[in-house]
């Protein structure tokens, strides 16, 4: 469980944003989904968790977010006091979460969807207006503030979801296969936009995906997870020159990284029935 205060100092001193130690998760039906998992993520790092479906990578993300409790082990998440909202000192404000689906409220406008985290923190609308608009501008949707989610395309909905995660200016952005359901062109574009945001905002990003190409393109470090129960199978550093762009996506180095990551991932699929 998160232990505020003590762990913050300890984590901060080590330059870490997230630390998991011997974390396991066993479901009520006795299935062990995760671990034991050891994971340390530095402040400002972009890390991908890559693995086959059902390997527990989403579970790990939910544990970091505090949406699920680990069965055993220790979870520490740094909450920068400066990033919490005025008058808000509760944990959780330092984390933004993007789900696999856009997860928008269909009954209200894009603007109100993005405003939600601030509204839940009891910030008056007059005060949150500028922050909401700023977040929407960052994802290029300022003109769609008054649209309803159903009027947007899949990619635009995902951008709204991203704007909502950014509106509290969190230190840590957790993303659970956010672009998996999008077409390839839209996904490439959102990948580039996400990288640009990461460069500008200096967030710590933990990105769950099952796409080798996406993980290599985006991250500084790819963590390959094994089959259930999910553990770390391999870690691969991606030392590509920044800023990355379409050049990187078509470079020989990129292919080389993808080959290495695929090779590291192969054992995770071994023993599974032919697809």
């Amino acid at each position, binding site marked *: 469980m998160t232990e505020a205060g003590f762990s913050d100092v300890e984590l901060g001193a080590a330059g870490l944003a997230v630390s998991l130690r011997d974390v396991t998760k066993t479901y009520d039906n006795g299935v062990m989904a995760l671990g034991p998992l050891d994971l340390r993520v530095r402040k400002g790092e972009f890390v991908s968790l890559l693995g086959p479906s059902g390997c527990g990578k989403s579970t790990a993300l*939910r544990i970091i*977010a*505090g*949406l699920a409790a680990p069965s055993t082990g220790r979870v520490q998440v740094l909450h920068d006091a400066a990033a919490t909202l005025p008058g808000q000192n*509760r*944990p*959780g*404000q330092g*984390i933004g*979460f993007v*789900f696999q*689906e856009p*997860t928008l*409220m*269909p*009954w*209200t406008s894009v603007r109100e969807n993005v405003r*939600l*985290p601030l*509204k*839940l*923190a009891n910030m008056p609308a007059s005060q949150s207006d500028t922050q909401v608009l700023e977040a929407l501008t960052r994802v290029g949707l300022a003109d769609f503030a008054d649209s*309803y*989610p*159903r009027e947007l395309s899949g990619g635009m909905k995902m951008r709204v979801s991203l704007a909502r995660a950014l509106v*509290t200016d969190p230190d840590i952005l957790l993303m659970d296969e956010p672009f998996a359901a999008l077409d390839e062109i839209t996904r490439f574009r959102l990948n580039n936009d996400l990288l640009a945001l990461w460069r500008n905002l200096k967030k710590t990003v933990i990105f769950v995906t099952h796409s080798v190409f996406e993980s290599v393109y985006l991250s500084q470090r790819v963590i390959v997870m094994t089959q259930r129960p999910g553990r770390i199978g391999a870690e691969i550093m991606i030392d590509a020159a920044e800023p990355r762009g379409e050049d990187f996506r078509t470079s020989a180095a990129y292919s080389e990284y993808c080959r290495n990551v695929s090779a590291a991932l192969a054992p995770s699929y071994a023993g599974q029935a032919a697809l």
Partner: protein
Amino acid sequence: MSTTQIGRAPTSAAPADRAFKVLRILLPVIVAAAGTAAWEMVVRLNNIPPYVLPAPSAVFSTLFSDWGVLSQSLLTTLLTTLEGFIAAAIGGIALALLFNLSKLLEYSLFPYAVILQVTPVIAIAPLLLIYLPQQTAVVVCAWIVGFFPVLSNTTLGLNSVDRNLAGLFQLYRASRWQTLLYLKLPTALPYILGGLRIAGGLSLIGAVVAEIAAGTAGAGSGLAYRIAESGYRLNIPRMFAALLLLSLAGIVIYAVLALISHLLLRRWHESALGKEN
């Protein structure tokens, strides 16, 4: 030749669509007109006396000549229905909210809500009339039949919250009150409106049932009471006229609730969106 046919196909589709819409309105009207005409003919050709079967013309003339009495009764019944409906709406939604807060309460009380629903209201009405003042008993009847659909639909709606949205509210440390107000109630709104639409019609039925039961005891002034009273007096045309008004009242109640539902949901809910979306 083939090109002209291809060119014509899309243009002929739109008028056909419109013709279909007109037909949907026109056909029931034609059926009503034909039915009424046949009824009128049968009565006139066979010289059936009005106390056996009144002709539609006799029903309509009674509607106009007795409008003073009938409109008063209509107002009484509508008022009872409205009171029962509002009580059902508030009671159903409030109970569903309580059930949502406490499973213990739900397990304790839900079976009794079901029992109240499955026991025929016509059998309960005479008992209620013994223990309660008549006006109250009639409203309670309207409430009993109306509240269950609101309760069960609202319960279903409150339990239909998107799992990830619930997670998001948890992540941002939403209070119970915020979760209810900003997540559960909006999610449940289409379900609640569906329940209310059913409850509107049922409240009218409850009110009529109670009035009939009260009417046999010799008191009352609603439309159903008029039907019972006219029956004793063999004033069959007035029975038909009162029945016609009851049907119209039911249709209007349904239409108003459907309109409110449409206005509240039209911007976002699938049920209120056009096919092209």
